[in-house]
């Protein structure tokens, strides 16, 4: 093989995937931009994308901003709600994930493989099935109410699935907490036991060891886990739709999903996605860059 052909081996090998990513990731994103900055056909109510960036108009984006910050700001409650739900869900997920990951990394001993397998198990169970499981349990005549009322003795009948915010937040935690546990476990597993012993020998109490050794060393895991669960939660609409279905608990994802299915609103859906992407751009790029530098370092 000549040197020239040799040099071309790797680009040729990578080309199919590069072309694929160009046509099906970059181009769709451009179409999204053109739709968000395009107009709506007045007669057929279908979106008319502006293919030339010079023709981009901010009509759709202005509509979205009007609904977010204008006098009739009916987009704002779902946005604030999403932020609130995600915050609560991330904090509770951390509170669940940290002890579980810490136990698995440091105390599980011979049972480590078993515990790890069980912790990974939710990954192999489809998200929809896990939500279906809770829909079954939380029906008005379901098992949860049955247990709470001690089999019908007490007059307790909570309508869990009728627009209750705590049901939705519980669903989000249930759905996403496994993704928090694994990066945390990876970070905690790397802390050498001799380091903890050294800290104790130097006179650190239990809380000091946690605050000054364990916590700083698990920060990358906490950051990765927080991002891994909060990014998909921000675009989630199916959890609230399945566990509540009420506009009282609708999220940003629900706004996008509703506008995409209403005629004449595709442009607003595109603009909403853009707003979401702009807000999430900083964490997404941070995650992407920290992943690639971690790759380069290892």
């Amino acid at each position, binding site marked *: *093989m000549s040197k020239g052909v*040799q040099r071309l*081996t*790797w680009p040729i*090998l*990578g*080309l*199919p*995937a590069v072309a*694929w990513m160009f046509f*099906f*990731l970059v181009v*769709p*994103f451009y179409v*999204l931009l053109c*739709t968000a900055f395009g107009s709506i056909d007045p007669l057929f109510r279908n979106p008319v*994308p502006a293919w030339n960036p010079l023709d981009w108009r901010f009509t759709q984006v202005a509509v979205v901003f009007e609904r977010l910050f204008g006098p009739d700001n009916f987009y704002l409650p779902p946005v604030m709600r999403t932020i609130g739900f995600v915050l609560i869900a991330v904090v509770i997920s951390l509170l669940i994930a940290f*002890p*579980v990951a810490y*136990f698995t990394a440091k*105390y599980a001993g011979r049972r480590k*493989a078993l515990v*790890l*397998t*069980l912790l990974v198990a*939710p990954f*192999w169970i*489809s*998200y*929809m*099935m*896990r939500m*279906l*499981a*809770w*829909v*079954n349990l939380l029906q008005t005549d*379901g098992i949860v109410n049955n247990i709470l009322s001690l089999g019908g003795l007490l007059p307790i009948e909570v309508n869990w*699935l009728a627009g209750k915010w705590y049901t939705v937040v519980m669903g989000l935690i*249930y759905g996403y*907490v*496994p993704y928090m546990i694994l990066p945390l476990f990876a970070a905690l597993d790397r802390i050498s036991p001799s380091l903890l012993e050294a800290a104790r020998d130097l006179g650190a109490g239990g809380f000091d060891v946690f605050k000054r050794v364990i916590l700083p060393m698990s920060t990358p895991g906490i950051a990765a886990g927080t991002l891994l669960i909060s*990014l*998909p939660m921000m*675009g989630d*609409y*199916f959890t609230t739709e*399945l566990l509540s279905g009420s506009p009282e608990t609708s999220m940003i994802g629900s706004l*996008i999903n509703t506008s*995409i299915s209403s005629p004449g609103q595709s442009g607003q859906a*595109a603009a909403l*996605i853009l707003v*979401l*992407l702009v807000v*999430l751009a900083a964490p*997404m790029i941070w*995650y*992407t860059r920290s992943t*690639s530098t971690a*790759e380069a370092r290892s």
Partner: protein
Amino acid sequence: MNRKISMTPKAHGLATITVVYLLWALVPVAIAVLFSFNAGRSRSVWQGFSLRWYTWDPNGSILNDPSLRNALLHTILLALIATAITVPLGVCLALALDRWRGRIPTGANFAVLLSFVIPEIALAIGLLFLITMLTTPFGLGTTAQIVGLVTFQLSYPVVIVRARLLTIGSQYEEAARDLGASALGAVKRVLLPMLSPAILVSAILVFADVLDNFVIVRYLSSDMSTETTSMRIYSTARAAPTPALNALATLILVASLGAVIIGWLIYRRLGKNDGGDVSFGSFTGNV
């Protein structure tokens, strides 16, 4: 020393939290599986064991309701095809990114990592607009669903194979080259066998993740014939379904677990051949 630590009240507290968490995480699903075998229509009152919702109910069972049967088969079809495209595409890109220097590979690497964190709804709707607003060689339906799934999943094989390439290093390939192998020959005869565990793990991950996918397959579907299990659960979970819906979800769970178990058996064989760690823990840890 270790034994002493594991006896402390702190360890007991942590163990209790872990057990309670695992029960909370897994028992609801176990109950959903159990009720797929319910003889009656209820999803909360046990009325006896039966395979009614799988096989013999004349209208409502998976075997006899064409729409349920189709949802099951379509989900598995999508998972098989998407895996068959994603994995080779991703492995080739990982190999290329490892040696190819310049702007295009840097951009491609960034795009792959970005596709991992971008909210799924953005990619799905971008593709939906692309297909509905431009003249594309394919319309909404199976092909569109596969295109979306492959794009979304491509990062798995790329990231996993690249991580493995970094630990392998370049010495084996260089030795092969010194012995007269061509660049591609060295990849094929030396690197690919060493990469096979990583390729296997990414294939199982992609397969299971596609079975689970909802957002992409829903926005890029065309009609009832391209409905998947996840879409079916979404549209009927709140509309008084029968345990057949649980049965459908259970079968997808079986497919997913089946892939993991088959994958583990192959992984163990591969591991034995080069004397690596073959425990299930190392497999699931990799996953």
